[in-house]
């Protein structure tokens, strides 16, 4: 199933946060009216950043959501599944590495 609804809910939430005359709770994402799986609905409702990432939310949307909540790197790095970061630090060779 497409992740469109899940990502659209976050995108629309971010737009609401920008409105100068509204005080919208930064961590409460509206889910009504979006086509969501149960897992997506649960991740948005909590909100669970690690699950949103695993379900396919674009990292730039996750970053914007975390920023809007005032979460610093240390606050939200721990929200991703343990060990995932290390596994992503690949051994693949890149041309800019000299050793």
């Amino acid at each position: 199933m497409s992740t469109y609804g899940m990502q659209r809910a976050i995108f629309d939430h971010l737009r609401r946060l920008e409105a100068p005359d509204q005080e919208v709770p930064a961590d409460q994402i509206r889910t009504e009216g979006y086509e969501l799986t149960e897992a997506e609905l649960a991740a948005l409702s909590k909100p669970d950043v690690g699950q949103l990432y695993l379900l396919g939310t674009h990292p730039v949307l996750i970053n914007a959501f975390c920023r809007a909540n005032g979460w610093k790197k240390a606050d939200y790095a721990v929200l991703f599944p343990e060990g995932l970061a290390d596994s992503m630090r690949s051994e693949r060779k890149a041309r800019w590495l000299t050793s």
Partner: protein
Amino acid sequence: MADIVMAYSTAHAPMMSANPASAPDDMAARFFGALDVASAKAAALDPQAVVMVSGEHFSNFFIDNLPQVSVGVGETHLGPVEKWLGIDRVIVPGSPDLGQAILGGLIERQHMPGLSFKLTVDHGFMTVYNRLSPQSTLPLIPMIMNCTFPPLMTLRHCWNFGVSLGQAIRAFTGLERVLLVGAGGPSHFVGEPRVGDIDIDFDLWFLRMMEADCPDELLDIPNDELMLAGNGTGEIRAWVTVAGAMSPAAGGPPTKTTALAYEPIYEWINGMGVALHEVVGSAGPATPASIFAPGGQYAAGPA
């Protein structure tokens, strides 16, 4: 015909405005010092407008309609949209005639940018623009580039696009002096498990490639290899676009590129670099030596 009187590219980390004091004092001072050198040199050349290329952050566009590039042709632009950025929301003047000339000139040269009469300018623009024009008086033509949602332009594509951009600006007869700025990158990882990582090796290699006028070794890098340096690092597409616009192929005068600063500021979760493209012999304050020059901060490799 308009001259591109100068260009520079710089990181645009939100924390540089939202919480600049979080960085080590000496690192922040060197980064902001380089940015202020670029701003002062630009001011001495009295530009009538600035064309700024920055990455899309889902501030304007979404995956229902996501252009690879969009040119802001509006009379004004509102920004920043982020309340937490530490910069007051203002109305920035546009330059619609130049915007339309860029748009038309790019299409004439076989590129297909989108357009917007109502772009908002987020941290990608405002962290840099606010430093350049604190009173928001310098007309801005924002150009938003997709740097994170595949399929993405290759760096070779960006270079060629930049050559056409430079040609299009120089063909415009409505202004005489235009400044060009690239904003974003270099390495950073955001919204994913590696958030906060910085690839110093990449950043220093990339800045050397900029000083070497973007050789094939850089332009031929596949997008998946570029991603190894960070999921936000693709914003260097803006830098390569600007470098292309300042290259001889774009019809401008001889230029020199200088890496003015590089600071891996983990508190800002970004490698913070500044590179200057100046017309050889142009007026203004003297340019500091490159960070790679003898005696420079990175003369002997990473610090």
